[in-house]
C-alpha cells in the first residue's frame, strides 16, 4: 500500500521533524509559538487535502470540525485527562462528519462548498445558542499543559496528517478519490464505490482537525464558540491549499509555510491590509496560477480541481 518514498525527501522530512522537536529546548517562546501555528496549519491543510484536494469536494466548513474538537475539549476539561480528551475530540468530530457527510456529500460541486460553509455556520450559531442557554459565554481551561508540550503534540498531529495524506495520495484509495474528482459518473461505472470512498475521505479529513481544535483550546486556555468556529479558519485552509497547489502532501506544506510567513509579517501590524492581501492572493492563485506553488517550484504536478 505504502508508495515508494524517495530517500532524499524522507531524510529531509525526518530531519525537519527532529529539528522542530528540539525547538522548545532553545527556550525562545516566540519561536515555539510560530512553530505551533505552522504545525497547526499543516495539520489542518493536510487533512483538508485528503477530502478536498483529491475528490474536488471543496469544504469551506472545516472550521466546524476544529470547533467541535475545541468544544469537546472544553466540556471534558477537568473530567478526563487530556490524553483521553484529545483523541475523543477527534472521534467526535469524525462521527459528526460521518453523520452530516452522508447526505451532504450527495450535493456536488460548488453547492457542496456552500453547503459545507452553511453547516459550519449553523453549528457555530447552534453552539452559541446552547452555551447562552446554559449561561456560559466562554469556558476557561485552567491548568492546561505547557505550550512546549502542546507544541510537541501539535507537531505529532502535523506529522500524522502529512503521513496520512502521503499514504492516501499514493494508494489505490487515493486514485479512486481522484477518479471521483475527474468524473464521478465514470468512476462509479468502473466500479469505484463512490459514496463509500467519499464518506471515508470525509471522515479521515476531519479526525485530525478535531484533535487540532482540542489542542488549540488548551493552548488558548479558553473556549468561545464564535472564535472556535471562526469561518476564517475554513477560509485560511482553502487559501493554503490553493496557494500550495497539488493534491499530494507537498502542496499543503508549501501553502502553510507561505501563509504563516505572511501572517507573521503582516497580521499584527496591519490586520486589514493583511486580509486584503489574502483576498488578492486567493484571486491571483485561482485565476493565474491554479496549480499553486507546487507547480511553480517543482514543475510537474498532477492537475488539481478546485
Amino acid at each position, binding site marked *: 500500500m505504502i508508495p515508494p518514498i524517495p530517500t532524499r525527501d524522507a531524510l529531509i522530512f525526518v530531519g525537519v521533524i527532529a529539528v522542530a522537536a528540539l525547538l522548545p529546548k532553545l527556550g525562545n517562546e516566540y519561536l515555539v509559538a510560530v512553530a505551533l501555528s505552522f504545525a497547526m496549519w499543516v495539520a489542518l491543510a493536510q487533512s483538508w487535502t485528503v477530502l478536498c484536494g483529491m475528490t474536488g469536494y471543496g469544504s469551506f466548513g472545516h472550521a466546524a470540525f476544529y470547533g467541535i474538537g475545541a468544544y469537546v475539549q472544553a466540556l471534558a476539561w477537568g473530567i478526563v485527562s487530556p490524553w483521553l480528551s484529545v483523541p475523543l475530540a477527534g472521534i467526535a468530530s469524525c462521527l459528526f462528519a460521518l453523520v452530516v457527510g452522508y447526505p451532504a456529500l450527495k450535493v456536488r460541486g460548488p453547492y457542496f462548498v456552500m453547503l459545507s460553509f452553511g453547516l459550519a455556520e449553523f453549528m457555530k450559531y447552534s453552539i452559541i445558542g446552547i452555551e447562552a442557554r446554559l449561561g456560559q459565554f466562554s469556558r476557561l481551561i485552567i491548568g492546561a499543559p505547557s505550550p512546549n508540550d502542546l507544541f510537541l503534540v501539535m507537531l505529532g498531529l502535523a506529522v500524522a496528517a502529512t503521513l496520512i495524506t502521503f499514504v492516501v495520495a499514493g494508494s489505490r484509495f487515493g486514485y479512486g478519490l481522484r477518479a471521483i474528482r475527474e468524473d464521478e459518473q465514470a468512476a462509479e461505472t468502473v466500479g469505484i464505490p463512490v459514496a463509500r470512498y467519499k464518506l471515508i475521505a470525509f471522515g479521515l479529513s476531519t479526525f485530525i482537525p478535531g484533535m487540532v481544535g482540542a489542542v488549540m483550546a488548551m493552548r488558548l486556555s479558553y473556549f468561545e464558540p464564535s472564535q472556535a468556529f471562526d469561518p476564517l479558519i475554513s477560509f485560511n485552509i482553502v487559501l493554503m491549499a490553493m496557494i500550495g497547489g497539488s493534491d499530494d502532501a507537498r502542496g499543503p506544506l508549501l501553502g502553510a509555510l507561505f501563509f504563516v510567513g505572511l501572517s507573521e509579517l503582516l497580521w499584527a501590524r496591519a490586520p*486589514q491590509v493583511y486580509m486584503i492581501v489574502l483576498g488578492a492572493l486567493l484571486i491571483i492563485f485561482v485565476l493565474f496560477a491554479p496549480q499553486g506553488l507546487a507547480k511553480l517550484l517543482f514543475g510537474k504536478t498532477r492537475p488539481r480541481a478546485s
Partner: protein
Amino acid sequence: MLPPTCDALAARLDNPQQNGLAVSALLSGQLLFAALVVGSVYVIIALGLNLVFGTMRLLDAAHGDVVMLGAYTSFWLFTLVGMPPLLSMLIAGGLCAGLGVAVYRGLFRRLLADTRLPRRLEGNSLLVFFGISIILQNFAALCFDTTPRAYLYLDGVIRVGNLAMTENRLAELATAAILCVIIFLFLRFHIYGLAIKALIQNRQAAAVVGVNIERIQLLSFAIGFGLAGIAGSLISMTEQITPFMGFPFTIAAFVTVILGGLGNLIRGMAAGMFLGFVEIYGVALTSSSLDSVLIYGVFIVVLYLQSQDFLGGRQKS
C-alpha cells in the same frame, strides 16, 4: 439584521406562555409589516444576484458586500452633504454598477472566456468572489473603521389603527416595490431585458439568435451590482452599517435565488418574501438569538433539497 422595533417585539414575545399578548401580536399587522419590509429588501438583493448567477453561473459571494458599499455611500452622502438616501441611492447604484463593470472586465471576462474549464467555472468564481468579498470588507474597515454607523432619516411614525409604521420603512417598502415593477417591465419588454432572460434560459440558443453575449454579461453585472447598491441605500435608512454587515445578505440572497429558481422573477419575489416571513415570524416565535440559526437552517435545507434537481438537471445539459 432585524429592525430594532422588531427586536423589541420579539423580546416581548419571547415567552408566549406568560404573555397573553403573544397570539394577538402575532396576528397583528406589526409583524406582517416588518416581514414585508425585510422580504422586499431580500427580493431586490436577490434580483441582482439572480442576474449575475443566472446569466453566467457565477456564484457571487461578494453580493452582500456590494450592499454594504451602497449603504456606506448613502450614509456618507447623508452625513456629509445632507443628501437624502432616496436620492443618493441612484449614486450608490451607479457606483456599484461601475464596480460591477470593473470586476467583470478585470476578472471575469477571462474566466468566462476560458471554455476549457466550464466544469470548474462555478467553483472558481465562488473563490474569486470570496476573495473580492474579503477585500471589500477589509477595505471598508480600513477606510471607515469598524464602528457601527447609522443616521436618522424619515423617522416619524405613521399609525394606522394599532399598526405603527416608521416612515423610513414605508419608504423602503415602496421603493423596493417600484424597483421590482421597473425590473419586471424591463425584463418583460425591453430588448436587453429579453436578451438577459434568453441568456438565463439557454446560453447557446441565445448566441444563435444573435444575442451579443459579451454585452449582455456586462449589463447583467452592472444591473446586478447596481441593484445591490440601491438595496444597501435602502437598508442604511433603517439599520446600522458596519463593514461586515454584508454577509447575512449574501446568504439570504442565495437562499432566495435557489428557492426561487433562476430567472424566474415571480417565484423569486415569493421566495424573498418567504424568507422575510420565516425570519420575522421565526424569531418572534422562538428567540432573537436564534436568528442566524434559522437563516442557516433554511439555507442548508434549501441548498440540499433544491441543488439535487437544480444541479442534476444542469450537469446533464
